[in-house]
């Protein structure tokens, strides 16, 4: 009697486990088309005859047939909505390159691990990638607070830390952190470009700031203050990502009579700002930084937040008229060669994800990595990759040139102003470029934009 009872408990446990396993499997079968690590075998027959030196294991993470790189990404947790699409999109681009001859005949294996946007987990997963998996480089590590946790470790280990997915000015310290490079338009430049537009088009209006209370928001405000006269700014309100109650901040903006609100916020908080404004009957012109303004992500968030609050809204109606900036071509511009290329690759390798700003970002930054690898040489060491980027990279998909030089590790240097119309970003006027200093002017960029290569793979 006693014995049978003792057996019953393990039996329940086994059944419970089996049920969970079945649940896990059923969800995996529906989405198993995009593998976490992209390493489809490449056709290494295309090794060009121009240089016939044999491929060697020239650096950690590089063998005669593969290049292994790693990243930390918020695949779960608060920053996952939207941002979790970036790494799979990069992996899709690498899969395309691998299927078309690879980089000098080597295939790229991209191993990205989840840090849940928690700096302690970032420290742990990056050590795993560097110390155990021996990656050649950390690529596109996402987030300012998370990546700051590993920047000094990567530089001490002399691991190339390329194209950090954050516009913090902190990646541009070539003397202290020679192995770290930014990629996207930094928030100071972005603040200056948005600030100049607002100062010119909304002269005499009352302006309010709403920004994330960290390096991201403060860098943006630094740029805004360079361009907008202090007397125009009637309110400066902040939020922290861990507190979703932005009601008091929005009420303060309204009480100050702000007619234009400039927001340096992540998508979730742009949506909260908009919804709280609606609730208060407050409808200023909204100007939002690029990272917080992807129209598709924003529209989805607005609808789901409103639903949680028991209301129904039309996301595209609410995003209409938001002014923002862009440093990659607009998604709706189907005649653009880059959009055509990245849409094609997306449809082939990453079709489950929506083709939105995050996906475009992931593919474009992966393209830049392949550019840099091809420039680094046939059998590159880690130092070769740094030297290749320090010598400057061709513009690629961005609308303005990169700042890369041995004394400058900032990425894209300019952007255009755009307005969201019918759920899509529409470019307004020319591309502006500027520098990250307080005095440097914002000027119209006159250089031509590059065309995407027909093969989809950068020329060496």
């Amino acid at each position, binding site marked *: 009697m006693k014995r049978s009872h003792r057996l019953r408990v393990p039996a329940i*446990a086994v059944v*419970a486990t089996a049920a969970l396993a079945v649940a*896990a499997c059923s969800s995996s079968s529906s989405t198993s088309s995009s593998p976490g690590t992209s390493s489809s075998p490449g056709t290494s027959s295309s090794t060009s005859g121009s240089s016939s030196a044999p491929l060697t294991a020239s650096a950690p993470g590089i063998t005669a047939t593969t290049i292994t790189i790693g990243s930390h990404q918020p695949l779960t947790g608060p920053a996952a909505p939207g941002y979790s699409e970036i790494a799979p999109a990069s992996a899709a681009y690498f899969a395309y390159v691998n299927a078309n001859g690879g980089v000098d005949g080597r295939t790229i294996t991209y191993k990205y691990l989840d840090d849940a946007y*928690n700096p*302690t987990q970032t420290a742990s997963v990056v050590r795993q990638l560097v*110390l155990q998996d021996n990656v050649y480089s950390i690529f596109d590590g996402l987030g300012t607070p998370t990546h700051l946790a590993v920047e000094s470790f990567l530089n001490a280990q002399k691991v190339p830390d390329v194209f950090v997915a954050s516009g913090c000015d902190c990646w541009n310290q070539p003397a202290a952190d020679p192995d770290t490079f930014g990629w996207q338009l930094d928030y100071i430049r972005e603040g200056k470009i948005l600030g100049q537009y607002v100062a010119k088009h909304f002269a005499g209006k009352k302006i309010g700031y709403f920004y994330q209370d960290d390096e991201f928001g403060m860098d943006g405000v630094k740029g805004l203050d360079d361009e907008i006269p202090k007397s125009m700014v009637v309110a400066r309100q902040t939020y922290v990502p861990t507190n979703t109650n932005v009601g008091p901040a929005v009420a303060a903006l309204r009480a100050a009579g702000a007619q234009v609100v400039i927001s340096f916020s992540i998508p979730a908080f742009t949506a909260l700002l908009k919804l709280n404004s609606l609730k208060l009957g407050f409808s200023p012109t909204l100007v939002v930084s690029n990272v917080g303004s992807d129209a598709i992500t924003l529209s989805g968030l607005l609808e789901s937040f409103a639903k949680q609050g028991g209301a129904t809204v039309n996301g595209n109606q609410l995003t209409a008229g938001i002014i923002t900036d862009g440093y990659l071509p607009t998604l709706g511009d189907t005649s653009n060669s880059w959009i055509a290329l990245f849409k094609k690759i997306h449809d082939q390798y990453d079709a489950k994800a929506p083709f939105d700003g995050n996906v475009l970002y992931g593919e474009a930054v992966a393209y830049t990595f392949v550019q840099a690898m091809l420039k680094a040489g046939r059998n590159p060491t880690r130092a070769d990759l740094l030297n290749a980027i320090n010598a400057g990279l061709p513009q690629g998909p961005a609308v303005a040139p990169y700042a890369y030089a041995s004394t400058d590790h900032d990425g894209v240097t300019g952007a255009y102003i755009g307005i969201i119309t019918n759920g899509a970003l529409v470019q307004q006027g020319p591309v502006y470029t500027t520098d990250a200093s307080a005095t440097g002017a914002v000027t119209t960029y006159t250089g031509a934009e590059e065309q995407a290569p027909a093969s989809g793979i950068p020329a060496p």
Partner: protein
Amino acid sequence: MTMRPLPRILGAALVGAALVAVLSMKLNAFRDYQIAEIAVDVTAVAGLTVLTGLSGQISLGNGAFMAIGAYTTALLLLHLGWPFIAVLVIAAAVTAVAGAIVGVAAARLHGPYLAGATLMLGVALPSLANAYPGIFGGDQGLNVVYSAPGFLGVNFPLTRWQAWVCSAVAIVTLVLLANLARSRVGRNWRAVRDDEVAAALAGVNVARARVLAFVVSATCAGMAGALLAVITGLVAPGAFTITLSIALLTAVVIGGLGSLFGAIWGSLVIVLLPTYATDVATSHGLSTTVASNIPVAAYGVVLILVMLIFPQGIQGGALWLLRLLWNKKEGTQ
């Protein structure tokens, strides 16, 4: 079997130290880092298992005590540049004071009310870093620079040194706690846990015993926070969310409530399981959305299994198995 407790505890500690030394030399640098991570968790979980298992109080706020220890460490290393051993002592002392303050309040609360109060601590305290960014560096946190001592040579791997330092602190903590649990203090805790009225009638100062348990538990968490600060090199509020406090409690329950050996099992599970599950998931070519959720699911499965099969935790299960084998052997003779 009839060995006196102190030599037995010291013996176990020596075996543990030898094991860490051998493993840290044999395994690669990342495994060394994981040993350090496990040791950090052992230090914090051991304090919590004593609080919950012996004195019968629950805490959902030990992550906040880790934050206090970590920020104390970061500020001292950053501004004063003291040697780590001194910093560790100060960090432990500061969290002990914090633990005493919380303990005085907690001694009046029971069950869900105590859980609620400590939960509030765990949620609210880390946001102080955002309220005073000038001191605590806001959301970005503070960077901590900590290197291996010079006499080991330039090529000595930093992660091995970190594994040694963290394991040394964890082992000393375990030895002290094991002795404490067998002393009058430990007996008083158990008496208070089982029946407060009876304990008070027997002359035990119930309030003092409860506050002391909180101080001990907070001190352990503070030391764990100090260790975490030096191994990750960064102290930021994102590291000390409520998830951390709950992970510590999970480790206590998985390992076996009130058992110091259980603290080791629990820490092994919470550190190694996510890495292992991710490796398995990605190597089987699962999609990102599934693979990234596998560690969370595995965590849940382990928790369910342990609860159903070994309600006394892994340590309880291991003892039960040993006893079963022992009885079989006795029976065949």
